[in-house]
């Protein structure tokens, strides 16, 4: 019988040889264990990661908010962030939008066979850094490996839970005529930064993804209790889509002023070139806030003090008519409909 020589004997050897994800990493055996120990536990080390079948958590009293999101993005590393940071920010921001203070998160990975281990390590570390900044703990996770070609590098799902403090109730149904609408910064940065990285579009833009966890915003808004009616993060579909969703869910009419919506000149220029509209581009570190009119200026001033939201602006107001619709006042003073995104938002020449 031939001696089996290709089984590595020492841990160091394992490290040296396995620079890519293999099917065996998802087998549940020794290599799965090693992957968890060396990459995930090393990055996320905390006392709650006990490696039981479930995480066991102590929660403070109050209403629990829970949110889940899956992250698929090309490229995985982009100016301003990466899929790891994004996977924390996305779920944190969804919790913040409901008025919750994020506490715990789970993560699940689907990784394509052959994925570089060094990239996985970078992604795990980026998740750890972002989670630590927010003060949210990564308490349980799962890893599956699929055959080459069955996934595009890596897909990440995160689920987060948080507690909603007493007196906070953010819902579209509470949005009423007279309320003011605030956006917390420039629109379209993330969408454009990603678009510019895609194959086939050979242009360089200084645009960075705005990918950021808005926990400070959440802390600030929680002081305003019922004065804040509703918040939503304008991710896919952009600002226009969020405004339309709220108009429909609240049964109100929304009017915004084109000239009040903050858009960076560089984003505007790139969008003109590609035939795209910044109001439909994704954001990953912005919030749309519906608030009592009398508190709007004060909230805006508070937003101005936080670095993530210093370019916030009041962009419009809620009306009773036309219910379910969003109108935008143009530079010329006319009104037109700002509709939902239809289909895929792609570069055009017409």
């Amino acid at each position, binding site marked *: 019988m031939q001696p089996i020589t290709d089984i590595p004997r020492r841990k160091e050897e394992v490290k040296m040889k396995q620079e890519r994800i293999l099917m065996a990493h998802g087998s549940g055996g020794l290599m799965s264990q090693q992957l968890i120990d060396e990459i995930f536990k090393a990055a996320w080390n905390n006392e709650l990661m006990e490696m039981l079948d479930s995480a066991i958590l102590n929660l403070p009293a109050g209403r629990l908010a829970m949110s889940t999101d899956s992250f698929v993005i090309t490229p995985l590393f982009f100016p301003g962030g990466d899929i790891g940071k994004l996977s924390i920010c996305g779920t944190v921001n969804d919790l913040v939008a409901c008025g919750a203070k994020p506490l715990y998160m789970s993560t699940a990975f689907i990784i394509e066979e052959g994925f570089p281990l060094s990239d996985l390590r970078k992604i795990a570390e980026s998740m750890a850094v972002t989670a630590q900044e927010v003060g949210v703990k990564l308490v349980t996770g799962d890893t599956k490996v699929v055959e080459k070609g069955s996934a595009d590098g890596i897909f990440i799902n995160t689920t987060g839970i948080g507690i909603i403090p007493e007196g906070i109730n953010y819902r579209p149904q509470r949005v009423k005529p007279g309320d003011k609408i605030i956006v917390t910064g420039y629109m379209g940065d993330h969408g454009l930064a990603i678009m510019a990285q895609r194959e086939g579009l050979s242009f*360089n833009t*200084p*645009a960075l993804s705005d990918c950021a966890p808005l926990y400070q915003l959440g802390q600030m808004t929680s002081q305003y209790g019922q004065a804040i009616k509703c918040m939503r993060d304008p991710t896919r579909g952009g600002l226009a889509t969020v405004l339309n969703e709220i108009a429909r869910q609240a049964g109100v009419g929304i009017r915004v002023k084109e000239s009040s919506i903050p858009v960076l000149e560089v984003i505007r220029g790139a969008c*003109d*070139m590609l035939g795209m509209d910044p109001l439909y581009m994704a954001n990953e570190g912005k919030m749309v806030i519906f608030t009592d009119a009398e508190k709007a200026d004060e909230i805006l001033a508070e937003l101005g003090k936080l670095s993530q939201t210093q370019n916030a602006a009041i962009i419009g107001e809620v009306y009773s008519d036309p219910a379910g619709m969003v109108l935008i006042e143009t530079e010329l003073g006319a009104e037109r409909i700002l509709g939902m995104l239809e289909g895929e938002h792609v570069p055009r020449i017409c």
Partner: protein
Amino acid sequence: MCLGVPAKVIELMANEVARVDVNGNQTEISVRLTPEVKINEYVLVHAGFAMEIIDESIALETMKYLEELLQYE
């Protein structure tokens, strides 16, 4: 029917290619259709090609009909 944006030529390169700037975004375009273009001039870009050199002496701000519009006041 045809989107076009003004872009500033910042570098002329080999093979009738130019590097242009649109509000801080840079891209390479073909200047085959505007062979006489010079650095710092603005061109109208469509589908990756400079279609024409923009005459900056006739700006949008020219306001050609300003005088005669006063009669409508």
